[in-house]
Structures are given as structure tokens and as C-alpha cells.
């Protein structure tokens, strides 16, 4: 397996244009209107591009996750529309969005994504996920189907989308004013009929500079893992520890191999987040300012639960008392509990423990660029990830922080390329060419 990329990959997790921390919208500097302001998204994507990030990522769900009374939506207005706009304002960075396979016809998905790929000159990627939330089905007036149908439809959709992408053959040629617009023999119907979806084709969209969009899938198990092994160029996981990361990455690589592919063709990315400062104290204070504007009481309650404490903290700004420490019953098998307990024993106050990011949904570094780079290096070198999905607490300056504080260190250590490799997303990630279906996965590819 000596083929492994010597550089790690970085992707910026975008969304509501404000930040991943629920308190970010209430910071004095925040323009709350950023949620609908494309100029804000453009600034963020350009900053990531300046930092050499391989792609920006628009996560998505097809329903409102909360009532928005106390915080903005986690997600943006619409991924394909936002990415189409960002394509015009950026030149190199990849553009990846989540689009559900559950409620949109494969012809529509194939067309949207390949148009984005062409208009961005080969920088598009598709995070193909099945929806399985009752709230999403309600927005489409449908009952929740049987669980096995979730991935059955995904398989059909991804298969048909890829076939449609390949239906305008690479040999169809470029329009020749004194000859043919395209070679009709190379533009053929796909005639695919599944149980859930179907399409005749062809899709009249010629190849982009990278052929067709990159396929991304979430790390999963069972049917989801099998699908990722068959189709995904990139798999995104949320491991909490290096051990979990290695295990997840290995599982994904094995699934890829089982599908008849080379495991080095798949890039495994792990979520991670940062609050950065000149010193760890400064970074902690940055995070605390955000915590203060979210729900501090709930944070204390959640930390208490992590530590297995029955009562609230007597002094949230002071180190835990020996009595509090003695009564703690952390669930040590759970990485978050262990981390919180370690921090408590090291004498950090409850508010500082929370500011370390122990309540974040993924591994989090509150500290200096050096500390953040150490974290990424450790995970990458240990084989826990090929790269990272970077969550940023507060977009106001947090993306610049990552670019200016972490990236130069990674470059100095030889862990990150000095500039974008090539012009397409496939180039940036070192992925092999792919056009249409993968014959190793689908047999003859017909």
C-alpha cells in the first residue's frame, strides 16, 4: 500500500455562513443576515481556496432540524444553487454538496451535478446520501418506507446517475463547425429500469475536465458501507479517536477491495474542528465567548452528564473540588467522557473543559495552530484518516485562522501541498479517472 498520498486533504464544512458554533450568530461582529448572503459564502470559499483546501462542502438535510427560535439553521438555503454561485467566484477549489438520493429523480441529479462540474471546469463532487428521517419524508408527502429500501433506491440512483454521466461518451468529440456537433454513435441511451427509479437517457452533457463529478459518501455500516465500497471516491467519517479512525478507514478500504476496486482509490476523511488563538488561553477564551452566547446552562448539564456527576458544578469557573472529582463516574469507554475527566483531573474549570470542545460532535482542538497541526499530523500518520473535514466555530475569522495558523505549519512539515495539485477536484485528491459506470463494480458496465 505504498501508494498512499503523502499529503493530507482538507475540506471546509460550510453551511449557514455563520459558523458551526450555536453561539456564533450572537457575537457582536456577526452579521446575522449572512445566512442568506452569498457574498459571505464567497468570502469563506475564497479563504479556503487561498489556503489550498481541496474542497468546500455543503452539508444538507431536507427538513428543518429545529424551530430556529434560538439558533440559525445548520445548513444553507440549497446546496446545488449555492455551489453553482460559488463556482463563479472561485477557480481551483472543489465544490461538494450533499444531495439526497431519496426524493429526486436520477436524471435531475445527474444533470444538476454534471452541469455544475462543467461550469466549474471539473470541480464538482456529490455526497450521495439516502434520506431516512420521517421529517424529510413528510416534506415530500410520503410515508417512511421499509429500511431495506433506503439503500436499494440509493444503489439504483447512483448507478443510473453514473450511467447517464457516461452516456455522452468521451469519444463524442468537441463540436466541429465544419463537421459534426458530436458523434451520434457516442451519445447513447442508457435504458435503465430499477424498482424505484429509471431513465432512458442519454443525458446531453459532455464530459468535464475531470470527466464526471467525484462521488462522496458518509461512512456507514451494512448496506451503506457496501455502497460506499462500490461507488465512493471519498468517504467521510466521524471517528472520535485515532483508533476509531483507523478502524473506520480500514473497514472502508476493505469494502472498496471487496467491490473489486483498489483501496488506495478511496480517500477517507474525518471530521475535526478548531478554535484557534495565539495561546491556548486565548483559544479557550474565544471558545468561551461563543459558549456564553449559546446555552451555558445546558452545556454545564451536559458536561456533568459526561463526568457522571449527579449535581451541578458548585463553581463553573474553578477547578473541580476533590469531592467533585471523587464523585465523578465518567463512562471511560466513551472517548468524550475520558477526555472531560482527564481535563478535570488536570485542574481545568468546567467552563474551560467545555471550551476544549468536549461537547462538540467531533474531535476538537482548542489551542494554537501548532497544537492543531499536531492533532492532524498524529491522525494522518497513524492511518486514522487521509484528510479532514474542517469544522469552524465562527466563520467571521475562524476560516482565516485555520488557513493562516495551521496550513503553513502543515506545509512546513511536508504534510500539505504548497498549492493545488492540478485544476480538478480529482487532481486535488489524487483520484483515478472515472467516466460512466465503473466496470469493475457493475460487471460489463452496460
Amino acid at each position, binding site marked *: 500500500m505504498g501508494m498512499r498520498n503523502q499529503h493530507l486533504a482538507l475540506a471546509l464544512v460550510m453551511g449557514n455562513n455563520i459558523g458551526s458554533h450555536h453561539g456564533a450568530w*450572537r457575537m457582536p461582529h456577526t452579521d446575522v443576515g449572512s445566512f442568506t448572503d452569498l457574498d459571505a459564502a464567497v468570502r469563506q470559499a475564497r479563504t479556503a481556496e487561498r489556503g489550498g483546501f481541496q474542497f468546500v462542502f455543503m452539508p444538507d438535510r431536507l427538513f428543518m432540524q429545529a424551530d*430556529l427560535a434560538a439558533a440559525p439553521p445548520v445548513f444553507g*438555503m*440549497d446546496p446545488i444553487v449555492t455551489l453553482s454561485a460559488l463556482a463563479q467566484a472561485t477557480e481551483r477549489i472543489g465544490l461538494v454538496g450533499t444531495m439526497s438520493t431519496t426524493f429526486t429523480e436520477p436524471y435531475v441529479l445527474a444533470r444538476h451535478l454534471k452541469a455544475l462540474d462543467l461550469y466549474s471546469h471539473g470541480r464538482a463532487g456529490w455526497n450521495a446520501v439516502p434520506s431516512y428521517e420521517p421529517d424529510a419524508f*413528510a*416534506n415530500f408527502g410520503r410515508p417512511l418506507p421499509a429500511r431495506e429500501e433506503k439503500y436499494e433506491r440509493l444503489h439504483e440512483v447512483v448507478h443510473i446517475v453514473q450511467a447517464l454521466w457516461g452516456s455522452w461518451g468521451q469519444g463524442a468529440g468537441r463540436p466541429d463547425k465544419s463537421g459534426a456537433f*458530436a458523434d451520434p454513435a457516442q451519445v447513447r441511451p442508457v435504458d435503465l429500469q430499477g424498482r424505484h427509479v429509471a*431513465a432512458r*437517457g442519454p443525458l*446531453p452533457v459532455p464530459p468535464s475536465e475531470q470527466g464526471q463529478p467525484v462521488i462522496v459518501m458518509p461512512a456507514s455500516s451494512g448496506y451503506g458501507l457496501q455502497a460506499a465500497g462500490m461507488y465512493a471516491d471519498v468517504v467521510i467519517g466521524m471517528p472520535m479517536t485515532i483508533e476509531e479512525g483507523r478502524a473506520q478507514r480500514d473497514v472502508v478500504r476493505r469494502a472498496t477491495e471487496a467491490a473489486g476496486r483498489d483501496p488506495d482509490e478511496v480517500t477517507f476523511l474525518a471530521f475535526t474542528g478548531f478554535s484557534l488563538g495565539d495561546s491556548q488561553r486565548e483559544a479557550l477564551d474565544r471558545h468561551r465567548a461563543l459558549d456564553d452566547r449559546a446555552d451555558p446552562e445546558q452545556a454545564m448539564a451536559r458536561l456533568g452528564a459526561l463526568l457522571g456527576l449527579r449535581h451541578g458544578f458548585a463553581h463553573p469557573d474553578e477547578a473541580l473540588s476533590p469531592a467533585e472529582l471523587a464523585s465523578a463516574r465518567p463512562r471511560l469507554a466513551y472517548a468524550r467522557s475520558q477526555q472531560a475527566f482527564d481535563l478535570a483531573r488536570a485542574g481545568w474549570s468546567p467552563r474551560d473543559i467545555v471550551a476544549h470542545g468536549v461537547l462538540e460532535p467531533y474531535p476538537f482542538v482548542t489551542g494554537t495552530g501548532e497544537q492543531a497541526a499536531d492533532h492532524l499530523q498524529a491522525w494522518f500518520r497513524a492511518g486514522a484518516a487521509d484528510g479532514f473535514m474542517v469544522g469552524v466555530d465562527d466563520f467571521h475569522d475562524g476560516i482565516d485562522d485555520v488557513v493562516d495558523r495551521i496550513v503553513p505549519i502543515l506545509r512546513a512539515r511536508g504534510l500539505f501541498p504548497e498549492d493545488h495539485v492540478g485544476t480538478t477536484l480529482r487532481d486535488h485528491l489524487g483520484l483515478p479517472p472515472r467516466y460512466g459506470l465503473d466496470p469493475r463494480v457493475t460487471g460489463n458496465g452496460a
Partner: protein
Amino acid sequence: MTDTKMILGMAMNDGYGALASSWRAPGVHADNYTDIAANIRFAQAAERGGFSFLFIPDFPAVRADVGRQTIRNILEPMTSLTAISQATSRIGLVATGSTTFQEPFNHARQFKALDVLSHGRAGWNAVTTSDPAVAANYGRTVASRAERYERAHESVQIVQALWGSWAADAWVKDKESGQFVDPAGLQPVNLQGRYVAARGPLAIPPSEQGQPVIFSSGGPSPHLLALAGRYASGFIGEVWTIEQGRAQREMVRRAAQDAGRDPDDIKYFAGLMTTVAPSVREGLDRRIAIAGESFPAQLPHLSAMLGIALGHDQLDRPLSPSQLAEAHASPMDPRSEPALEVARRGWTIREILAHGVIDYHPVTVGPAEVHADHLQRWFEAGAADGFWLNPDVFEDGVDAFVDQVVPLLQQRGVYPTDYPGRTLRQNLGVPEQYGLDPRVVPAANA
């Protein structure tokens, strides 16, 4: 009525032009189909001419031989208009979307996202689809007309209800109190039709024009008129004479009135294909040079329209006196009357065809006065509130119209010298609307 000015829009397609062989014309870039920069160029030219909107028809299937012809359709409407929105600031962006094959939640979301990103310039041409080739691309069969229109009514109502589900005053953005949205103003729509349904709400606040403008297009069947009369603020028509235009415009206005609306709430647009040239002679020569190869094949059609036999040997001669005496406009084709008029002016058969008498719309050929006269005559006769233009060749045809015809229309006082407003709604002169129209759907305010 005295102060009302005509409204201009422009159709966009594969980036070449309205003439079938325009992609082969001198000066045209053969790659325009896949190069969004081309359509951006044309959109900017139209904006310079004060055009109120770009109109994107859509036929999501390959209908011609890609060896000899181009796709005659834009690569993909939403991604294209979103890209164009980033390079323009005033022109409206109207895309066709099928209610037959798309889910209301997806439509509502994408069009409102475009509306917000473009600061109130989006429009949705809500159509039904009956073409078997398109249905096959969505893996479906063609539904009955009654079913298609029932689904269309349901779809438009659900889309508009979703648009209104983030109330105009709901976004309080109160950093002090911590209230992001007033939840009372962000409530589900809970609409269930026979074919489509959605719970909502849709987490997108109002744009500068509230919500996208609805358009209708096609032949004015009772089904379509009932749909347009209820929801549409713009109607994209296809007529060949002033009389047809007046009749259709009246039908559309009456349909709005029947639905409880003001007839001025819906604007009727007639199509026009333009060839701007220093003289009629040079205009005809331009058309013959680009599209003349297809003329011999059009002879039988022209013969049928005029009720006389026309031979290939007659291509370069006008109709003889006896042919003229015998000729009569076929009642089977609405283009016959204008074709006969051209024939009576003594043009040769080739020149008659070069006038575009068998094209999809009336065709004007020649210097600025020819086009301005046509537009002014139709407008002042009440045959249209405005026009959707189809330039023969985009690469130079848009600039020619904007630089030569627009100033003439302005001198004559029939066309505005600047945009009347900032939003599509303002530039069309149609009233504010947010959510459903209570005049049309009285019960829906619940």
C-alpha cells in the same frame, strides 16, 4: 395605459441562437453549449438593453441528431441561471420547471434560494410535461392531461405556501434576547394533495421581491388558462399575428379575472425572432448563409401553407401571377397568413423562407426600424404587454438589438430608459405577493 411601456425578455438556449445552424455561423464559438461564460455574455448584453428577464425553456431530453444539430436547449436551467445571477444585477431570471416530474419541496427550495441570492430576480415557469421522451428520462409514463393539471395546481399551491411559510416579519435576529426567528412565523404548511404533499416549513426568508414570480407558457388550452389565470404573473405565448396576440392576451387576462384577480396582474409576452442587419437584403443574406441549406426541405411545408405547388426549380423566383392568384392561407397553420403576405411582396421562394415564415415565432429581418415597428405595432394594438426575443445568433444578435433597436424604442417613448425597479416583480409591474394569493386560494390562510 398611457404611461405603460413594453417589457422585453430574452430566451436562452444552448448558447448559439434561434437559427438552426447558428452554431456554425462565423464568429460563433463552437463550445458555447458547455461554456457558461457565453450565456453570461449574452445575459449581460440583454441587461445593458434593460431587458426585464431571461427566459429559459427546458426540454430535458435529446430530440435531434447530435451529429447535425445542437441540443437546442440549455445545459441545465437552475445551475445556469444561478451562475448568470452572479454576473448580472438587474435582469430577471426565469427558469422552466416541470410540475409533472419534480417535487414541490425541491422546486420551492431551489427557486427561492435563487430568488434570495439574486436579490429578488427569480421566476418559475411552471409547466406540465406530456412528452414521452422526457417522461422516459424520469422513468415514467405520460399521465393524462387531467392528472397533469391537477398535479400542477397542487404543486404550485404547495410551492407558494412553502414560500410563504417563513413569514415576512419572522426573522427577528435579536442577538440580545437570543431569538433568531419568531417561531410563530415559521410554521408547517401541512398541505396534502392527491399527487403531491409537503409539511414544511421551508427555512428560507423572503427575498427583496418576497418570492419568485410564476410564469406560464404554451398554447392557451382551457387547462392551461385555468392554471395561468390563478397563479401566473407572466404568460409566454406563441402567436404569429396581431389578431392572434390580441385574442390570446384577452383570454389570459380573462382567465385571471375569472380567478378573482385583476387582469393587469398578468403580463402577456409574444415571441419574436430577430435578425438585425443594415438592410433587409443583408438580413436575408445573413439568414440564407446560416440556415439556407435547410430551405429546400421546407418547400413542401410552404406549399401546403399557401395551397400551391412549389418546385425546387423555383427557389430563386417569386410566385408567378397565376400562383399568386391561386394562393390562399391554409387555415391549418397560423403562420400561413403572414407567409402569404411576404409572398405577395414579390420575394423569391428562397427569400420568403429566409423571412422565417416557418419559424416558431414571427421573424423580423432588417434594420432597427423593422424590429421597432413590429414591436410598437403589436404593443400599441394590445397584442402583447411585452415580448420574448429570440436572436438569430446570440454572439452578435443580442448586441445588435440592444445597440440599434433599443434606442429607437426609447426615442419613440414605448420602452423605458432605465429599469423601473430592482426586482423582477417591479420590472414586470406586477403586484406584491407572498405565499398563496388569498383571492385565489381563500382557505389557505390558515
